[in-house]
């Protein structure tokens, strides 16, 4: 049924009664306009600073086109076995590195969770240590480890593990903090100690999340492990870099296709594992 339309006078009365309901105040509007123009100005300044121009992008695109033409048809070249070995090495590095990180991150995540370590100072400083480690990229770790333990996959594994421990610990800590308090309280109520409360009250809630994140990291590390080779930390990266140097783009294309296939397979398998472990709710109990 039609509602009566308010008259101008009624609208004015309501507007003076609840001005905010009719839009932001003048101050907020001005602030908004300033914020918008500042961000647009900043973006334009950045584009100018980096020398963005349509012609440069267009020329770059045609350069990219030349590369793509050189890539067709992809060819394995003569070093088939080398390529396969390189990819296997990348996958193995990613697996080992992620596994180490995922295991070490569990106790660290517990230490970083505010609902496990209730001392604010301890919890705060642990979190800041995570932040510090997170500020350093995998590639920097790889360069450092290559100097420390020499060329090869060991440096890569250590780089992946070090970089991911910090990130996974933070993610785990956050997952633990979102866990329900009531379930842990149930364990407290039966007289369980701190360790047992964590084991039975917290871990069953968060471990599927932890596992899912570790599997994502494994997949993403397989991709990033291919770059570690460029700095000599093992894996397929070195072979890609060498082929780019001598402009064997067809072989580069072949390696890229193989990498995509590998990551797709890993993604498929990990999706299955996640679905099985997380989705198991009807009947079968876990742990």
């Amino acid at each position, binding site marked *: *049924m*039609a*509602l009566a*339309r*308010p008259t101008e006078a*009624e*609208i004015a009365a*309501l*507007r003076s009664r*609840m001005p*905010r*309901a*009719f839009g932001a105040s003048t101050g907020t509007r001005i602030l908004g306009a300033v914020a918008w123009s500042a961000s647009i100005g900043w973006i334009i300044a950045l584009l100018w600073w980096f020398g963005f121009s349509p012609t440069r992008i267009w020329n770059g695109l045609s350069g990219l086109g030349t590369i793509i033409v050189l890539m067709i048809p992809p060819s394995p070249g003569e070093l088939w076995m080398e390529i396969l070995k390189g990819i296997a090495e990348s996958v193995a590095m990613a697996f080992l590195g992620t596994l180490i990180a995922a295991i070490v991150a569990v106790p660290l995540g517990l230490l970083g969770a505010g609902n496990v370590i209730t001392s604010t100072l301890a919890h705060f400083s642990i979190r800041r240590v995570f932040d510090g480690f997170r500020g350093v990229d995998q590639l920097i770790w790889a360069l450092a480890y290559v100097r420390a333990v020499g060329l090869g996959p060991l440096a890569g594994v250590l780089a992946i593990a070090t970089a991911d421990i910090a990130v996974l610990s933070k993610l785990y800590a956050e997952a633990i903090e979102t866990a329900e308090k009531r379930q842990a309280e149930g364990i407290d109520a039966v007289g369980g100690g701190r360790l047992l409360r964590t084991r039975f009250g917290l871990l069953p809630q968060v471990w599927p999340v932890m596992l899912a994140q570790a599997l994502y990291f494994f997949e993403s590390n397989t991709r990033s492990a291919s770059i570690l080779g460029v700095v000599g930390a093992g894996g397929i990266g070195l072979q890609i870099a060498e082929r780019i140097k001598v402009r064997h783009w067809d072989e580069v294309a072949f390696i890229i296709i193989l990498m995509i296939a590998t990551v797709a397979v890993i993604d498929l398998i990990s999706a299955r594992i996640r679905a099985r472990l997380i989705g198991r709710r009807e009947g079968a109990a876990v742990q």
Partner: protein
Amino acid sequence: MLELQGLTRRFGAVTAVDDVRLVIPDGQMVGVIGRSGAGKSTLLRMINRLTEPSEGHILYGGQDVTALRGAALRRWRTDCAMIFQQFNLVQRLDVLTNVLVGRLNHRPGVMGTLTSLLKMFTAEERAMAIRVLDRFDLADTALQRADTLSGGQQQRVAICRALLQEPKVMLADEPIASLDPRNAKVVMDALRQVNREDGITVLTNLHHLDTARQYCDRIVAMQAGRVVFDGTPAELTSQRVRDIYGVSEDEFEDSAEEAPARPHPARTRLAVA
């Protein structure tokens, strides 16, 4: 006049609503009662086509609503507002915006859609929203987020949203099942007000016989998808309830309340059977 002709809905082998025939004159307040799984929700959801009928027709003012598609269907949904058991407000939006959502299908054309996307409602629309909120003592909450309100307040906001649609019919699917008795009364009073003052036809599912008797002009009782009683509150005596359901009134209400919120109609039906 809303007319249901042989309305039927099957979920697999289960018939949730079975050949329902009803004629509801404009301005009536109708209570649909029945135990959980009797097909009340499915019936209501079919009327504004949130659930598609398997068979039968819905007519409003002679127009066959069952055949509508696209823009015409959306226009029908605007005419036939829905109140949900769980309120179905957008929790992160403020109350005013939640109410203004009721105007969305009244803003035609590309400009209407564009301004809606940017939440640019006119002063007139905002004034309408505040006036409706005012009617239910909610104007003070207009700028709060919907999730800061109590259940009873949220359900009244949902009624305000429905009113801004300027509907001809209002469907309410267990509007008070998630509320405590005091809030339930406030919400039922609001529905009656909508019916009496705005002349909107109200069709509401209820599982409390007393509530239905107190508020409705007419009561339709369902059992296993079929209409087993259709009459005035005075005609639905305790003896009639016993005849229809084979249990006393208290037992009827206990069994209606025990049933959980229904995730899937077919499943609930099986649980009752």
